[in-house]
């Protein structure tokens, strides 16, 4: 069996320590070691953006990182945006996506949310062009993006900082 390394990371505010193979991808670590399956894997080569999570507040592709590289860092996954599917407790961005029909199959959605959270923090009042540019690193095959753009605009008007 391959060698194993200890990794300690804080995910959604909770600290986890696990013994992992150095080659284990961060995406697989989150999904299969920690059971945080909201982070999805669509291409395994960093193009589709479905696996996007926040690493110390920055959007990164968890399929392009090894779990051991996250040692000592703070990660936020989609599960960290709201305590559960209770409509009352949704993050404003999630509420906006619900209102604007910003998702269909929902597979790419967690990655899009995790890309848009830091984007809206840095650009609280973005133009449509800026939103489209920011979304261009995430592939969606269902929506044609129009309602995603509308959802992000709506979220900007709702203010993503209220939670």
């Amino acid at each position, binding site marked *: *069996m391959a060698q194993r390394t200890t990794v300690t990371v804080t995910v959604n505010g909770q600290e986890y320590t696990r013994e992992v*193979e150095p*080659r*284990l991808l961060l995406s697989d670590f989150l999904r*299969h070691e920690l*059971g*945080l*399956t*909201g*982070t*999805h894997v*669509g*291409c*395994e*080569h960093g*193009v*589709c953006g*479905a696996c996007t999570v926040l690493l110390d507040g920055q959007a990164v592709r968890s399929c392009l990182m090894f779990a051991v590289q996250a040692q000592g860092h703070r990660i936020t*996954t*989609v*599960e960290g*945006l*709201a305590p*559960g*599917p*209770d*409509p009352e407790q*949704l993050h404003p961005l*999630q509420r906006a*996506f*619900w*209102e604007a*029909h910003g*998702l*269909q*199959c*929902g*597979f*790419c*959605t*967690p990655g899009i*949310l995790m890309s848009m959270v830091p984007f809206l923090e840095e650009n609280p009042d973005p133009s449509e062009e800026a*939103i*489209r*540019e920011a*979304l*261009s*690193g*995430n*592939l*969606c*095959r*269902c*929506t*044609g*993006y*129009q*309602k*995603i*753009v509308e959802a992000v605009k709506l979220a900007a008007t709702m203010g993503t900082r209220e939670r």
Partner: protein
Amino acid sequence: MTTRYFGQPVKRNEDPRLLTGRALFVDDVDLPGMLHVAFLRSDLAHARIRSIDVSRARQRPGVVAVYTAEDLGDFWRHGPLLVPPPPVEGIVFHQRTQVTLAKDKVRHAGEAVALVVAESRYLAEDALEDIFVDYEPLPAVVHLEEAAQDRVLVHEELGTNVSAHVVQRKGDYESARAQADVVIRRRFVYDRGTAAAMENRGIVAHWDPKAETLTVWDTTQAPIPIRNGLAAMLGLSEHQVRVIAPFIGGGFGPKIMMFYPEEMLLPWVSMQLGRPVKWIEDREENFYATTQERGQIHDAEIALTRDGRVLGVRDVFLHDQGAYAPYGLTVPINSQCTLLGPYDVPAYYSEFTALFTNKPIVTPYRGAGRQHGVFVMERLLDIAARELGMDPAEIRRRNFIPPEKFPYNNEIIYQDFAPLVYDSGNYEPALQRALELIDYRRFVEEEQPRLRAQGRRVGIGVVCYIEGTGIGPYEGARVTVESTGKVSVATGIGTQGQGHFTSFAQVVAEQLGVDVADVHVVTGDTDMFHWGTGTFASRGAVVAGNAIHAAAVRVRQKILRMASEKLEAAEEDLELVDGVVRVKGVPERSIPLGQLAVEANPLRGAVKPGTEPGLEASDFFGPERGATASGVHAMIVEVDPETFLLTIRKYVVVHDCGTVINPLILDGQIQGGVAQGIGNAFYEQLHFDENGTLLNASFMDYLIPTATDVPPIVGDHVVTPSPLNPLGIKGAGEAGAIPVGALFAQALENAFSDLGLEIREIPLSPNRLYELVREAQEASGHGASDGPGPGTGSP
């Protein structure tokens, strides 16, 4: 009824779970003791297998089992033929379906030759490296015309690469041609793309040896046929097998191919090992092992009068089946049957030859052959309009089937084996509305000349299409009022993002007067409902929607009958509002539905003879034939004369899918379809080399449109309800994608009309457009050596 749910833009019931990462997808299933499977796939498109040595793989720590075709014993098999050939006279059909694992020979790159079961996916993939396959490479059949020559055979024992040959006729094309003032003949090519759902395929199979039950989580669009087929293959009773299609990350057609080899093998492996097993396709595998679509070559001819009336069309085409044809002839039949479009064409001769090639398998992908037919007809009309000096919109208007001619019989056989009869339609108002929304006259007469004078390459297009949707055989549903007053609905079709949890809830809420959020819909779990076929052919809302409606109507009748006794009022004096049944005008005389449900399922006393316990009903719906949706797309596009990149300045869709259940969901379906159509038209193409190797099997090289490529879509609806179902619905899932290739061709041609550019192929790309413009310039004598540049645009 005081509150209307049907037809409202209700936000979706399923979204909170999806938005918070709590929805279950197949790869989220995690079972104790679960093993992981990886497949060894052929790198070669065509080769004989001399031997396979798996001995080293079997010895690798962490590997539990390795199987080749030989190790499967009696379970080695061909998959079933999903759709038999249609009852067309003189049809030739050679059945060849995919195999569980390649034996003796591989017929396309990516065909599975062995599988490894290990403690983790990482270890399983390590062990693939240990397997040695001794191949004898064979020349590959890649191009359709090569395949037709039969020099190299994909299936030698057939003696030909012909998978099928079909001729269908309406009227007498030759005499129509003899009367024509104008005859136009062209060759059109439509090449392959891939559906590229964001979620790859995946299967988890769990044989429980003690309970003797098999549970399969599958990214399928058709869980019930998968259950029934698996039971038959594995020698089990259908009730021992439960197939669950949980949340599915996009389907678009390829997820209804059945059976994929992996779908047959994982359950068998789980039964062999007595442990749960999981296989999740990776993106590279998806480019080879998931089915694809669109390769066809058409030689088409149109005969017209000098005033632009179509007298007849003749089309002879080749269709690429790939290495096997498990889905029969649905795709080429759809091409054949969609070509005639919304037009009154008196004579039609259509002949196709479907061919085996050494490429991945072709099965329906959103549009399912309809794109090709629409492309050919719309192109012929555009070329005819140019030759006749007519406006492209006008030639279409002149040939529309008038509203009074419905039902309109095209006299040929459609994919559901029923005659191609359009149930209803009203095409001219949709065209008119599209022209208004795109501001056609003003663009053509004012804006385009002004921009052209500045050297800008702007073009406009407007194309029309129909789509046969909502075909049979049937779907079913069960609707239950629970003791809480909430309502549960179970139906057999799978769902892949279409919003069924909401639109179906709206259908029920309308009948039972409950809140949409209080209707819980279960789809795609065969233990919940085990009658039905699946989600395909834009049929979910039409067929399952009407089945659910029928079941809800029956529950409503039960409620009224029972409440009439309890409230001592006539049924017609009762209404169902806000979760209660009450006497109209006397709201205090009411019973909550939950209470009624409890009383309908008593613990003491007796249920009266002739009645059933509970407020529950199941019902079914099977349409006699499909409902014909239609639409018009229009676009203004600008081409950068240096880079040949596009800017879509405006995109309009006017669509008629009959009665609308949820306009929000419908808009999403249309917009998403257009985005896929745009990808198919200008960005996405699968490039195979002469050996049948796919050169762009990754999202780095296969370009899916992003948010900066897809424009906002201006949409409107025309509503011509279908007379074929009680709700008047027509399907909408595929419509957005179908006419986009034809639209791009027309609009781009228009942007270069001064050069006589003629586009006869899809997909395009900036490179390809550049080449075509160069060729047109050379042919027209416009400074070819300078390349196309700004300033060449005098119309």
